[in-house]
Every structure is written in C-alpha cells, then in structure tokens.
C-alpha cells in the first residue's frame, strides 16, 4: 500500500457550471433575455409572473419554466394566460439546476421568444448556489417575512441583480421596517435594483415593467445587430 496525496483543485459544481454556460450560449444565440426568479414559498413569484405577463403580452413574446418540489398548478396558471409554460418537478429537490433547464428547453418553442422566465423552487438558500445560465437573478422578499431576512440569506441577496419587496399592501398589518430591509440589502449588494411592489393592488409594478422591458429590448437589439 502506497500512501499518496493527489492535488485536484476543481470546482465541485463545475458540471453544473458547464451546463449553465451551454444554456447561456443558447439563450444568447436566440437573443432571449432570461431571468431566474427566486423567493421563499408563497412570497409571490407566480403572482408576479401573472402581473408581468398581463402587462407585457402583445408586445413581448414570453415563455415560462416553472420549478416546483411537487406537481403544482403554477404552469397551468401561466398557460391560462396564453403563454407557453413547462413544469419541472424536482421531486423533493430544493433547487433547479442547469440540466433541468436544458431538458425543459427542449419542450419549449423558443424560436420567437424574447423573454424566458424561470420560476425557481421556493427557497432562499439553495437556488442561489446553482446557476442556470440566466442573465439575471431576481429575488422576491415579501414583507410578511420580517426584516431580519437579508442577514440570514446573504448569498441570495448578494447574487440577485433585482430585489422586489412584495406585499407592501400588508405593511400596516405586519412588523416589517422597510428602511431596515433596504439598508441591509444595500450592505449586502449595493448595486441591486430595488422595487417595492404589491402584486395584489398593482402598486409599484410600473418601474419593474420598465426595467424588465429595457433588459429585453437590449437583448433584442444585440440580436438584430448580429443578424
């Protein structure tokens, strides 16, 4: 028996990183803007998608990938709006990964799509660690979750380009100091776009729509510049 020590130095998640990079290449070739939507369960991801689809449909062609631990009706909620949606059931898995997205893409017709939204599994920890090939990570935090959240989930706040603070219609009834949330989020990620919204009343959504449409148009112009 010879004792040996062998140097490796590899990223443990390199297999996923590779798949994410492949996905990204496909998105870019097709000129599609993609964001990965993350939050705790029930913070309002599907509600935000419904609002966003209502606002942008007619002008922007969308598709949705819905991630969930078990069968859920999220994809159906989206399909009812005439938008193509595919459901991924992770069967207990707490996050989506690059491979699941690759498979889901095969059942979508992405030829004329401008915007692909991926609703991740409801969880503020795990999805932050797995890139899917998205251009931006977008997170929703709802005011019913309490203002301590940012410090408990630093990676999620650190890696998300956008923070949507949802359910502000409930602010009078909950113990959540918005200025605290904003301060903590700024300490974790000073470049984050922050929108305060209510998917129930529609308040505050307009600036989010403008931001998103800007991102989609930016991708489109790169596509036409190449064509």
């Amino acid at each position, binding site marked *: *028996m*010879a*004792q*040996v*020590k*062998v*140097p*490796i*130095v*590899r*990223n*443990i*998640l*390199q*297999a*996923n990183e590779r798949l994410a990079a492949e996905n990204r290449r496909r998105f870019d070739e097709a000129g599609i803007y993609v964001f990965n939507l993350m939050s705790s369960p029930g913070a309002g991801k599907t509600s935000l998608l419904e609002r966003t689809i209502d606002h942008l449909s007619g002008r922007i062609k969308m598709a949705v990938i819905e991630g969930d631990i078990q069968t859920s009706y999220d994809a159906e909620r989206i399909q009812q709006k005439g938008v193509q949606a595919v459901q991924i059931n992770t069967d207990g*898995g*707490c*996050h989506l*990964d690059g491979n699941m997205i690759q498979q889901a893409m095969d059942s979508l017709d992405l030829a004329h799509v401008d915007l692909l939204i991926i609703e991740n599994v409801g969880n503020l*920890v*795990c999805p*932050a*660690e*797995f890139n899917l090939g998205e251009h931006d990570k977008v997170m929703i935090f709802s005011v019913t979750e309490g203002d301590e959240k940012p*410090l408990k989930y*630093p*990676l*999620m706040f*650190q890696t998300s380009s956008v923070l949507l603070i949802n359910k502000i219609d409930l602010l009078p009834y909950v113990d959540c100091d918005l200025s605290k949330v904003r301060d903590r989020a*700024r*300490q*974790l*990620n*000073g*470049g984050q776009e922050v929108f305060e919204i209510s998917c129930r009343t529609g308040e505050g959504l307009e600036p989010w729509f403008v931001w998103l449409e800007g991102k989609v148009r930016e991708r489109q112009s790169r596509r036409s510049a190449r064509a």
Partner: protein
Amino acid sequence: MHELSIAQSLFEIVLEEGRRYRLERVNTIRLQIGALAAVVPEALTFSFNMISENSIASGALLEIETVPVVAHCPKCDVLCEVENLVFLCPECGEPLFDIVSGRELSIIDIEGETGEEDGAG
C-alpha cells in the same frame, strides 16, 4: 438540502480522480468552502458519508477549510475582508461588487492509498 447534490458532484469527482490515480482507498478529502457559499459543512459531510458508502471513499474524512470573504474596492484599489456581511469599503464606503474570495466550493486534494508497493512509483 442542496448539500446532497453538492455531495453527489463531489463524489463523482472523487471517483473520477480515484480512477485516474488508481486509488484503492480515499482517506481524506480537502475542501475549501467560501464563507458566503450556501453550504453547511455538517450537512455536506453527512450527505457525503451517506453517498460514499461501499465505495473507495467510504468513511473518508472531509477536511473543510472556510475561506473568508474578501473584496476589491476599485476606488481605493485595496483588498478588504468583508466583515459581518457588509459589502461596503471600510475606507470609502463604496459598494463592493468585485468579490475576490468567499464563494469557493472547491476540492483541493485527496489522500489515499494505491494498490502498489511503497516506493514502486
């Protein structure tokens, strides 16, 4: 519990490297995990032990080194350790985007035994 899928990826790398170096046993696996990575070391160890049962890595020790969060401030052109998760330059107060370390999820080396005699190369 995404530590399970991280452990699975780690296990696959260990098996692959084990074949490459003809290891018959793996005793120690050294990892660097950034303080910002969403990984609980105990959960990773637990998952890995479960997955690696009846393999060359069964019972292997995971030696996990935590890497501090360090960022670069472009304005001051200095590296600063990010303490208490405040990503603002302690000198000038600018937001720090350029994270130099703290997100690692890396395998560094593995120690094991080959079937060969000592000194046989």
